[in-house]
């Protein structure tokens, strides 16, 4: 069981990369990128997990409870924002390109060759 989160990290990364490598549709490409990026979130969160840990909020809980690492959660939050913004920009680019060339296929006639 201990290896499971890390195996999922690897799986998400490889599957996301495969999606981008073979995609014929820009929207699909953005989704595949999001899948790949989620491996990053998962790795950070797994790294910060402590057995039987609760959320790192002391509020009404006595301070003796074990808590998971708050730092990686903050990092993941940052990374989620980054992922969302990049997706927005990519979708905007894909939308405009679709209007220009009438296709979402990144493979069709890339204007830049060689």
């Amino acid at each position, binding site marked *: 069981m201990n290896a499971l989160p890390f195996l999922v*990290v690897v799986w998400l*990364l490889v599957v996301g*990369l495969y999606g*981008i*490598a*073979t*995609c014929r549709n*820009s929207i699909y*490409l953005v989704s595949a*990128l999001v899948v*790949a*990026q989620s*491996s*990053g979130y998962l*790795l*950070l969160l797994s*790294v*910060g997990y402590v057995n039987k840990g609760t959320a790192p909020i002391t509020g009404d809980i006595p301070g003796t409870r074990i808590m998971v690492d708050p*730092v*990686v959660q903050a*990092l993941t939050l*940052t*990374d989620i924002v*980054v*992922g969302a*913004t*990049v997706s927005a*920009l*990519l979708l*905007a*680019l*894909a939308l*405009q*390109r679709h209007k*220009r*060339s009438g296709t979402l296929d*990144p*493979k069709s006639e*890339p*204007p*830049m*060759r*060689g």
Partner: protein
Amino acid sequence: MTMNIPPLPVVLPLFMAALLAALEQLRSRHRVLDVLSLLTALAVVIFDLLLLQRSLAATQVYWFGDWSPMHGFPVGIAFVIDPAAALLALLASLLTVAALLFSWHHFLAVRTYYHTLMLLFLASLQGFALTGDLFNMFVFFELMGVAAYALTGYKIEESGPLEGGLNFAVMNSLGGLMVLLGIGLLYAMTGGLNLAWIGAALQGKPVTAAGGVAFMLLSVGFLVKGAVFPFHFWLPDAHSVAPTPASVLFSGIMVQLGLYAVARIYWVVFSDVLAQAPVQSAFLGIGIVTLLAGGAMACLQRHLKRLLAYSTVSHSGLILAGFALHERQALEGTLLYIVGHGCIKGALFIATGILVYHFRSVDEKQLHDRCCRLKITGALFLLAGLALAGLPPFGTWAGKGIIEESARGLGYGWLVPFFTLGSVLTGGAVLRAGGGIFFGLGHLDPFSSSAPASGEEGAEAERSSGPTPVLMLLPMALLLLSSFGAGLLPQSQQVAALAAARFVDRDGYRDVVLAGERQPASPAVSEARPGLGGGLIAAAGAVALATLYLAPGPLHGRATKRIKSLVKEPVTLLRRVHSGYIGDYVVWFTVGTAALTLLAVLSW
């Protein structure tokens, strides 16, 4: 107040970017936006100069939120400003000033977005160069990326910029993901994010596969930004279609900062943990392949900006090789080379912007013999081409000379001919283009026949038949002059020497960050004296290559056909590898990452 300069190069442009966006009502008055953003960039130049001056005396450490280390552990984020960091930050702000000066006459900005994004980009470059925290580096890496993707796609009327922006964004996001995975691994091993702390925590422990893989993942991430083989494919697509001022920054400093990050992380964190040999041979190999591939592709282009973009790839290879020598003197040369090259590349991109301003084209064939009236631009362009090849006393010459001397001393003398070849190829390509465009020399070149990619020509500027505005020539001349000064002035070499000495002083860096001990000023005696010979040979080689293309001599006639058929196959292969399809790029990326990861697992 005096101790509070370090955050300003980042915070001021961020604030001004938001302010400009809020001043949207002023959008009819472009000059207000131009002046405000120019003033901001100038202020950042001044801050960077002050920081450089102070860092020469002692490395400056600035803890945000006054979170200085708690029981020796850094809980906050620190800027660690040593001369190398300050020097690159200064280069970034100088190039921004040049780019903004150029854009004064350049194009009608769409609302406030152009100025906002340029200032955000400037802030990200500053933060990336100055920070001493791994995750903070990642955040600025992404800010740099987001601003850059949008700037690349600026001209949505063409499909080139959209395609280029898409490829750029996907590849760099994958790079960012690799950085994040590397951060995750290091955090699991050390529980910290500060570079100095991670280094200190890893020191003396047995080397594990995780450490090696973490270094390689971080390297891959930043090498994507640094555009070295096989992660470089996005660069020509993006740099050739971005607006000229953005290209100046992309090629002049952004790419180099990626390589700088690899060197910084290696020296601070891994240099006493991982054995040096595998890293060194891998990066030297990658560097040389990049240098040759970029140089060859540059010779094959007729789209001027794409030509310059490939020359950036080639010089990236040289810079990576310089860093990979892992030695103080080589580092000194590399820093000097980055400064010299950044200024020249900026000047060359500005020249292409001037061509767009007058002729709405950057296609070598279309422009052939049509630009003879732009005498000053033409002369400066050729001078920049020679400087790119390493003509003494430009910064490129000094930097490359010092790297070469260090390589010979380390027993890597075989690198020197490759460096020269790279300079000859890129310089020759630029000179050939300049000779044809500005002086009508030669016939249309026999080898560069790829279709011109459209991109910038469209809406960037109204065609102008008047004289070139002074504000366009001025930044170009100033940048060339800066590169000239970087190579000629002994002070600049002193600064580079001191920066390199401080850069490699791993223990000093850790002490000053973690314990607050002042890093002793190392003796900054630079023994390296670049010889004139190497520079002259490279420049002469570039001229010879350009002559070969332009002169009505041996290359036109039967010999041409033979040479053509000889190089046809490798050229076709090289072109087909640069296919422009993102799927191929990702496969190359995966191959490169897998190779480096495997190397890490097997060697450590």
